């Protein structure tokens, strides 16, 4: 399936003929939040397909639509918990931070710009920053991150939100093509937030080897993402 076709795809696996100008689905035709919860929890195949959240995000930002929000919530809440626990947050803290992360989405939905990247990337940044701020208490990171985001706000991004979505779908496919060792190092970096020195030590691998494996993994993934550089 062409990734863009997922624009019109709903969680009940039917297709709507949504026009690009009317991307958000009509809330009346969608399953109730409880139905959605059941569908999401009972279907594994959905998690393999990237989902385009532009419609639901538009519903949240412009219409303050709770059903749209809860669909996003149901998808991301358990995943954010897994991510935050992996970083070392105790169960209760992981749940609290994941809730806060999604509450921010509700409050700041209008700031989300699909041309800047996938919704999951936006949430990933919020969760990562919250964890560093609340669990690791690294104020230096927060200040640096604010300075970098400030500079990034001036960047001109020439990709449409549809292209961004296609990039993201391709990226997800390419992750499965990493070698076993690349996949392991990438996961240790992102999901255990281990420094390269710590990874090298844990695996008894020279630091230079860790770095060059990660570099090759990044180039493999990036060369397929939108042809940037």
């Amino acid at each position: 399936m062409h990734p863009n076709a997922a624009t019109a795809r709903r969680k009940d696996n039917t297709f709507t003929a949504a026009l690009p100008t009317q991307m958000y689905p009509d809330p009346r035709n969608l399953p109730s939040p409880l139905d959605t919860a059941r569908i999401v929890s009972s279907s594994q195949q959905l998690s393999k397909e990237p989902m385009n959240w532009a419609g639901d995000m538009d519903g949240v930002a412009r219409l303050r639509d709770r059903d749209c929000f809860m669909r996003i919530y149901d998808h991301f809440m358990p995943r954010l918990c897994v991510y935050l626990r992996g970083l070392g947050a105790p169960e209760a803290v992981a749940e609290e931070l994941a809730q806060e992360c999604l509450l921010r989405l509700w409050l700041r939905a209008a700031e989300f710009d699909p041309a800047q990247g996938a919704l999951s990337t936006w949430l990933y940044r919020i969760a990562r920053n919250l964890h560093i701020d609340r669990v690791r208490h690294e104020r230096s990171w927060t200040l640096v991150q604010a300075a970098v985001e400030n500079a990034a706000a001036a960047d001109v991004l020439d990709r449409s939100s549809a292209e961004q979505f296609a990039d993201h779908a391709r990226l997800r496919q390419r992750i499965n093509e990493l070698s076993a060792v690349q996949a392991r190092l990438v996961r240790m970096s992102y999901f255990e937030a281990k420094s390269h020195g710590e990874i090298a030590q844990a695996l008894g691998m020279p630091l230079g080897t860790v770095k060059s494996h990660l570099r090759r993994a990044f180039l493999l993934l990036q060369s397929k993402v939108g042809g940037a550089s």
Partner: protein
Amino acid sequence: MNPHHHLHESTLMSYAAGALQAPLSIVAGTHLEQCPHCRQRLRDAEALGSALLEQTQPVLDDTRRETLRAAMLAQLMDVDPPAMPPPERQAPPERPQADPEYLPASLHPYFGDSLASLRWRWMAPGVHCIRARQMPSLIMLKIAPGKCLPMHSHGRSELTQVLRGSYNDALGLFAPGDVADLDAEVEHQPVTAPGVPCICVSALDAPLVFSGWLARKVQRFVKL
């Protein structure tokens, strides 16, 4: 500013993962502020993190899930702001880039905002330095023009961002905006360009390793 020497891919991934140690992340941030190319690669590295996030297999038991869900719905009622149109993207605050003395914002908490107000300490002939407040492995260096530093390598990793002036080593010319992302496998002997002093900010996560006996002796006194 269009830098020619960039962050290593593994450094960008580590930054995106929130796994870079504080001093290294401050120097990486200094470079990212000045380098649109690395900011784009950082977006890609963050997209990788989010793609991994989406591929996780959630394991949250149903009753817990329902409790949290109900709590979230209750909070939505409490905090609901009125529906509003997306705001105009606010322009970033004016950055006094015209002022050549202005330091990148990532460095402000440690060195203030201006090169002109730095209070340098003598370290060795032709070399002055300032250690960051509360961040001993973050240092600012000022090296006199036309100066040849002793050959050295780095314990684990070093990140150096050039702010002023320039230097040459086996890896090429490093000018303002360029970052040297080095590790134990690189041994280098920087030579600063004639003209103005070279000012750079460095993060070391282990002491430098000098290869000459004289330099090693000096190191005992200057503690780099």
